[in-house]
């Protein structure tokens, strides 16, 4: 191959490579235009700031835990781990918890035909409660945890694979600010949904509430043990 021919081939190959790279980049991550206006940008910025703060808090927490591990002797180390385990159990809903909160009772609105409590209603109510900063929830003596199933089986509503009992159905909710939560529930969308289904929900704040623990084994399907870093 003489020199000129080689140069020509190289030039063409270079242009081809450039075109290929551009095409790859265009198809893999296309140009997306940012169409947010000032308010949306401001809200997003606020959100990101909040996230940063949360992350910083988390880092601080783990740093403290790490310091704790490092400083303490062996026995204390076990204690610290035990405490972490207890904290995790509490967070997962495996322990009884008590505190201030509200009790919501579901009853038929009118006498006569018994209305049905659809799972969808309960699900929406729980979502709404969580939106209003509820800490822990139990429905009809069943603790609601992350994986709690609420579903209809043969026309009956099951929570944690237990059928719900007859009226009145009691929902206990723990919250830091029970009064505020109650006010929000009175004005909530779920309350209206319940009325539409011929049900009535009543709520009253309570200073001392105890929620039962989740008593069934938690099946972990999609989690894997993290590999330890060497």
């Amino acid at each position, binding site marked *: 191959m003489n020199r000129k021919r080689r140069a020509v*081939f*190289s030039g063409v190959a*270079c242009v081809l*490579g*450039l*075109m*290929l790279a551009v*095409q790859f980049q265009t198809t893999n991550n296309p*140009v997306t235009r940012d169409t947010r206006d000032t308010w949306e940008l401001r809200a997003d910025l606020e959100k990101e700031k909040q996230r940063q703060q949360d992350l910083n808090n988390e880092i601080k927490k783990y740093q403290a835990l790490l310091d704790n591990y490092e400083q303490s002797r062996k026995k204390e180390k076990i204690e610290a781990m035990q405490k972490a385990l207890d904290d995790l159990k509490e967070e997962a809903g495996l322990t009884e918890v008590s505190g201030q909160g509200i009790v919501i009772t579901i009853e038929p609105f009118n006498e006569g035909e018994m209305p049905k409590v659809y799972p969808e209603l309960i699900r929406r109510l729980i979502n709404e409660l969580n939106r209003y900063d509820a800490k822990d929830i139990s429905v009809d003596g069943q603790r609601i945890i992350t994986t709690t199933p609420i579903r209809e089986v043969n026309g009956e509503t099951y929570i944690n694979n237990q059928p719900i009992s007859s009226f009145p159905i009691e929902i206990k909710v723990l919250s830091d600010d029970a009064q505020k939560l109650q006010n929000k529930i009175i004005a909530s969308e779920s309350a209206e949904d319940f009325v539409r289904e011929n049900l009535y929900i009543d709520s009253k704040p309570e200073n001392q509430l105890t929620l039962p623990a989740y008593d069934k084994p938690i099946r972990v399907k999609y989690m894997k043990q993290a590999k330890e870093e060497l």
Partner: protein
Amino acid sequence: MWLPVLALIIGLVLGFLSEIRIPLEYSNYLSIAVLAALDTLFGGIRAHLQGNFEDKVFISGFFFNILLAAALAYLGVHLGIDLYLAAIFAFGVRLFNNIAVIRRLVISKWSDSRKKS
């Protein structure tokens, strides 16, 4: 022999580093241009192996094919016919032909050299 490969890699790296992205509606044109360029390159390699390579034909073919393919796609968009399919078909068939010929030439060269040794 290795210089063109090196140039191809340099081109790829340059393209990825520069982060140039074209708007999505033009990516059709670019894809067909890439196909045309590939076709021309393989045609060039084939001509080189067969010994009837000409610089002017190669370079003019490279740019002309790219422009023609893009123009055909453009015309197709405005006529409402998927004309770029014609270009894809033509280039695709030629690409396969060229690669087949190149393969045969390389194999015969290789077996010749083995016989000599």
